[in-house]
C-alpha cells in the first residue's frame, strides 16, 4: 500500500505536467531528455499552486488527492488530444544539430543519462533508509513548515499561531513550493510522514538531471555533453541535495530550465518556449528566496538584451503578447509576499536590525565582510575541487582568455549570472549574522544553485573552442524550421 501511495504521489504531478506541456504545445519529440524534467517542473508547480488555493479556501487537506486526480484525468485528456492531433497533422521533425555525433555517441549519451538517473535514485534510497527527516534545515525549515500546515489543516489562523514561537520553524518567510509538495505527500498518507515526504523533493533532482541532459545536448556534441552531465551528477552538493528535503535542487532546476527555455525561444521564436519559460520562472521564484532573486536577475537580463534589438512596432507587439505569460511568475511572487504579510513572516536579511537598515549595513560592513566572502569563494569554488569541479574559475579563465570568441556566448545566461552574483554579494555584505557563520552555512548551496548553468556555459565554450580548433561543429543550435517565426536571436554567430 505504501509503495502504491508513493507511486501516486510521484506520478500524479508528472501526469499533470505532461498535460500542461501538451497545452503549451511542447511535445516529447522537441526534447526527448528534457521533456520528463519539464513535465515534473510544470506538474509539481501546478499541483502546489492548486493545493495552495485549496488550503486558502479552507478545504480539507485529505480530500485534495482526489481533486488532484481529477486534474490528472483532465491532463491525460489534453495529452491524448494533443497526441492525436500530432499524429494526423503533418509535422516536421525538429531539426537535428549538424555534426553532432553518430549513433554510437548518442547511445553512449543515453547510457550516461540513465546511469546518472540510476545514481540519483540509489542515493535517494540510501538516504531514506539511513535516517528520517530529523536534522538541520530539512527538519527545521522545510519539513517543519510542511508539518505546521498539515497539523493546522491549512494556511489559517491556527497555522499562524503554530508558527509564532521563534524556534518552531526557522526562516518562516521562505516560499511554499517545497513545503506544499511535502503536504501533498502527507495528504496521501493521511498523516505526517517521516521519510516518504523526501521522495517528492528528490524527484526534483532527477528532473534536474534530465533538464540538464537536454540543455547540454543542444549546446555540445553527445560525448562532451555526457562529460558535463557526469560532472553535474557527481558534484558534492547535488549528492547532498539528493538525500535531503531542502530546496536547493528546486532552485537549480528552475534556473536551468528557465534560462534554457528562454534561449530556445530566442533562437526559434516559438512561443511554446516562452510560455514554458514563464512557468519555469514561477517555479524558480517560488522555490526559495534565492530563487526569487535569480528569477528577477533572469528577467532583467532578458529585457536588457531585448532593449534596442527590434523595431519599435514589433517590440511592442512582442512585449504585449509575452507579458501575459509573465503574469504567472509575477502572480506567484505576489502570492508569496501577500502570504508572508498576512502571517507576519519577515526576512532576516532585509529586515532592519540594531545595526540599521539592510543598505546601511551593506555600507557599514562592506569592508569587513568582503575579505571573508572572497576567502570562502576561493575555498569552495577553487580549493575544494569536488564541490563544483572548478567550473567557476574555469568559466572566468575562458572568458578572460577568449573575450572576443566567447564574450557573447549565451548572452542571456552570462548576463543573468552576472547580475545574480553581485546580488548574492550584497546579501553577504549586508547580513545581520556573523559573516563566517552565514558563509559557512550557505555558500556551497549558492554555488550549487548556479552550477548547472555554469556547466552549460563551459560546455558551449568547450564546443566552440573545439570547433574553432577543427574538432567538430560549433555549439550553434539547429537552424530554424522553414516557416517558423524568428524574432531575432540573442545568439550572434561566433566571431561576428
Amino acid at each position, binding site marked *: 500500500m505504501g509503495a502504491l501511495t508513493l507511486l501516486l504521489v510521484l506520478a500524479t504531478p508528472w501526469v499533470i505536467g505532461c498535460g500542461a506541456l501538451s497545452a503549451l504545445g511542447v511535445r516529447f519529440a522537441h526534447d526527448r531528455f528534457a521533456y520528463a524534467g519539464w513535465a515534473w517542473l510544470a506538474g509539481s508547480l501546478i499541483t502546489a499552486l492548486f493545493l495552495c488555493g485549496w488550503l486558502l479556501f479552507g478545504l480539507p487537506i485529505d480530500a485534495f488527492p482526489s481533486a488532484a486526480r481529477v486534474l490528472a484525468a483532465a491532463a491525460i485528456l489534453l495529452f491524448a488530444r494533443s497526441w492525436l492531433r500530432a499524429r494526423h497533422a503533418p509535422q516536421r521533425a525538429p531539426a537535428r544539430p549538424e555534426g553532432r555525433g553518430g549513433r554510437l555517441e548518442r547511445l553512449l549519451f543515453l547510457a550516461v543519462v540513465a546511469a546518472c538517473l540510476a545514481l540519483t535514485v540509489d542515493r535517494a534510497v*540510501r538516504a531514506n533508509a539511513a*535516517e528520517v527527516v*530529523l536534522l538541520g534545515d530539512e527538519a527545521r525549515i522545510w519539513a517543519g513548515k510542511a508539518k505546521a500546515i498539515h497539523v493546522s489543516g491549512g494556511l489559517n489562523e491556527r497555522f499562524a499561531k503554530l508558527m509564532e514561537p521563534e524556534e518552531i520553524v526557522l526562516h518562516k518567510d521562505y516560499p511554499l513550493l517545497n513545503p506544499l509538495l511535502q503536504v501533498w505527500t502527507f495528504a496521501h498518507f493521511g498523516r505526517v510522514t517521516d521519510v516518504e515526504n523526501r521522495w517528492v523533493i528528490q524527484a526534483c533532482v532527477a528532473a534536474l538531471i534530465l533538464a540538464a541532459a537536454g540543455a547540454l545536448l543542444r549546446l555540445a556534441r553527445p560525448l562532451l555533453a555526457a562529460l558535463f552531465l557526469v*560532472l553535474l551528477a557527481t558534484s558534492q552538493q547535488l549528492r547532498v541535495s539528493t538525500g535531503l528535503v531542502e530546496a536547493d535542487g528546486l532552485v537549480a532546476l528552475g534556473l536551468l530550465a528557465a534560462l534554457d527555455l528562454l534561449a530556445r525561444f530566442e533562437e526559434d521564436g516559438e512561443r511554446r518556449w516562452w510560455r514554458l519559460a514563464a512557468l519555469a520562472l514561477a517555479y524558480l521564484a517560488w522555490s526559495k528566496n534565492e530563487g526569487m532573486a535569480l528569477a528577477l536577475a533572469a528577467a532583467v537580463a532578458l529585457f536588457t538584451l531585448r532593449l534596442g534589438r527590434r523595431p519599435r512596432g514589433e517590440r511592442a507587439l512582442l512585449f504585449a503578447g509575452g507579458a501575459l505569460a509573465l503574469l504567472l511568475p509575477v502572480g506567484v511572487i505576489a502570492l508569496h509576499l501577500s502570504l508572508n504579510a498576512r502571517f507576519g513572516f519577515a526576512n532576516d536579511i532585509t529586515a532592519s536590525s540594531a545595526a540599521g537598515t539592510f543598505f546601511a549595513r551593506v555600507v557599514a560592513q562592506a569592508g569587513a565582510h568582503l575579505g571573508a566572502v572572497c576567502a570562502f569563494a576561493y575555498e569552495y569554488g577553487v580549493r575544494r575541487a569536488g564541490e563544483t569541479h572548478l567550473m567557476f574559475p574555469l568559466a572566468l579563465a575562458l572568458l578572460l582568455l577568449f573575450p572576443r570568441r566567447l564574450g557573447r556566448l549565451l548572452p542571456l545566461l552570462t548576463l543573468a549570472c552576472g547580475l545574480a552574483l553581485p546580488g548574492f554579494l550584497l546579501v553577504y555584505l549586508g547580513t545581520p549574522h556573523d559573516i563566517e557563520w552565514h558563509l559557512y552555512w550557505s555558500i556551497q548551496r549558492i554555488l550549487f544553485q548556479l552550477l548547472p548553468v555554469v556547466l552549460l556555459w563551459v560546455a558551449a565554450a568547450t564546443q566552440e573552442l573545439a570547433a574553432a*580548433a577543427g574538432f567538430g561543429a560549433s555549439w550553434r543550435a539547429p537552424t530554424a524550421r522553414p516557416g517558423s517565426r524568428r524574432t531575432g536571436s540573442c545568439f550572434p554567430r561566433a566571431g561576428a
Partner: protein
Amino acid sequence: MAKAQRIKTAAAAAALAAFLLWAAGAALVREARILSSVSLAERRALLDVDLEDVYRASAREHYEMFTALRAHVPRDVHLVIYSRVSAEQQSDPLLGQDLKKQLTLLRGKLQALHFPAQVTPLAGEVENPETYLALLDPSYYVLNITPEADFPGQSRFDLVARGATYALHRFRGAD
C-alpha cells in the same frame, strides 16, 4: 584566423579536454568507491526497508518515548520536557552544560520527529510554582525524563504513559 590565435585556441581546447577528462575520471573513481561500499544484496534490501526500522534507528535510545508520544500526544500541543536536577548539578560548569545540551538536543529531536507546537525545557525547581501552574491548560503535556522524581505541579497531571527513561503526563486542570 592568425596562426598564433589558431595555436592558442587548439592548445586551450586540448587543455580543456584533458582537464574535463581528468575531472570526470576522478569524480567517477570517487563515485565508484562510494557505490562499492554497499553490496548489491544490501542495496536490494534497502529498497524493501521497513520505514519503522529507520524511525527506530533515528530515534535511538528515545524510540520507546517517541512511540508513546505518537500514540498519546497530538502534534499541536505544548510539551514541557522536565529533567530533575539539583541546584549543585545545574551550577556545575561542566555537568550543568552537559545537562543543558542534552535537553536542547532532545528538544530539537522532539520538534523534528513529533512537531509539538512548542517544546519548553525545564530543569530542577520552578521559581514561582503558582505562576507556572496558572499558565497551564489542557493542551500541556509534561515529558519527565527523570521519572524517578516528581516534577512541579505533578498532582495536577494524569499519567498517560511510562517507560524506563520517561513518564508522560497530561494536565488535568485545576484541582
